[in-house]
């Protein structure tokens, strides 16, 4: 599942960015060129986070407490980064 998530997250974000760059070449400063690029970048950044989240759930389900704690810790640090960015 993690592999598929990574692959599809990569394809989707790249497709959106290619579309946005094409639109930029056609008409600079248009909203419809920047919006897909922003969406692509957001999906790109969320993919590793989703990967850690899925791994955390899987470890919890398997009863692997150490690995579950490690992945949960990583998610906390990422949340702290997002909080720092929003301030």
């Amino acid at each position, binding site marked *: 599942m993690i*592999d598929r998530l990574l692959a599809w997250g990569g394809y989707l974000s790249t497709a959106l960015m290619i579309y946005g760059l094409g639109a930029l070449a056609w008409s600079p400063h248009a909203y419809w060129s920047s919006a897909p690029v922003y969406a692509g970048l957001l999906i*790109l950044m969320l993919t*590793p986070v989703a990967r850690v989240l899925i*791994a955390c759930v899987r470890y919890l389900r398997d009863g692997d407490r*150490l690995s579950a704690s490690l992945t949960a810790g990583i998610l906390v640090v990422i949340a702290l980064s*997002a909080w*720092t960015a929003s301030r």
Partner: protein
Amino acid sequence: MLTDVTLPLALLTGVAGMVAGALGGMLGLGGGVFLVPFLVQGLGVPMPQAVAVSLTTVIATSNALSASSWARTAINMRLGFMLELLTAAGGLLGSLTALLVTPRTLMITFSVVMALMSALTFMRRDVRNNLPASVDPGPWGGRFLDERLGETVSYRVTRMPLAMVTSFLAGNLSTLLGIGGGVVKVPVLTAWCGVPMRVAASTSGFMIGVTATSGALVYLGRGLLLPMLAASAVVGVRLGSGLGLRLGRRLPPRLLKIILAVVLVLVSILMVSRLP
């Protein structure tokens, strides 16, 4: 600071991203180590914005690398998450201190780190760390199929505290310098911690995406990420990383280490030769 991205700048960044992706895919690095000097020295992009763009490409390389079948079979998830926790914490600290450090200091730090890692990689180029499959890998080690030997091999992770401290420092440098941190972790893991090159590269490739995400979020929030420039670089990286992965699969570990050492020293010289 750069505010507008022209089409030629976007295209050049895409080509640079392609080269960075190819080298990154081949050596298990994010590619930022190649992209940052090019953006700063070649295209005149201010260091903080180059770092922000580079961090997004590191995420792209990590996704491509981790999803590849070559890397998947060698990734040590448990070791990866253990070290990633420290790397992400170091990355968060780096993103806060980056705003207080001058570009000149960042560039000198970058050059020194690259030169040190180049020397380490070259000196330890013959270390393999492969053990017979019958050897117990211990709590952090593992086994994987070495395609070049055609057999399953085992490895044990030694000096775990060193690996942990290195990971924290790598995370810190990652956000300060716009690199994935693999350039620090891979040489240390292979040289001193008993991890084979392929496992270190795959596991590092798996980790760097998370490290870069925590840093990139902060740069995005501070308005330092130029979306169009980042998108050009990411598309280039996606195209180049496929080629790099195929090359990395075919070349022997010793040659990969020599290539890594040479590229690192060249990058170090390029960066320090044009200090502001």
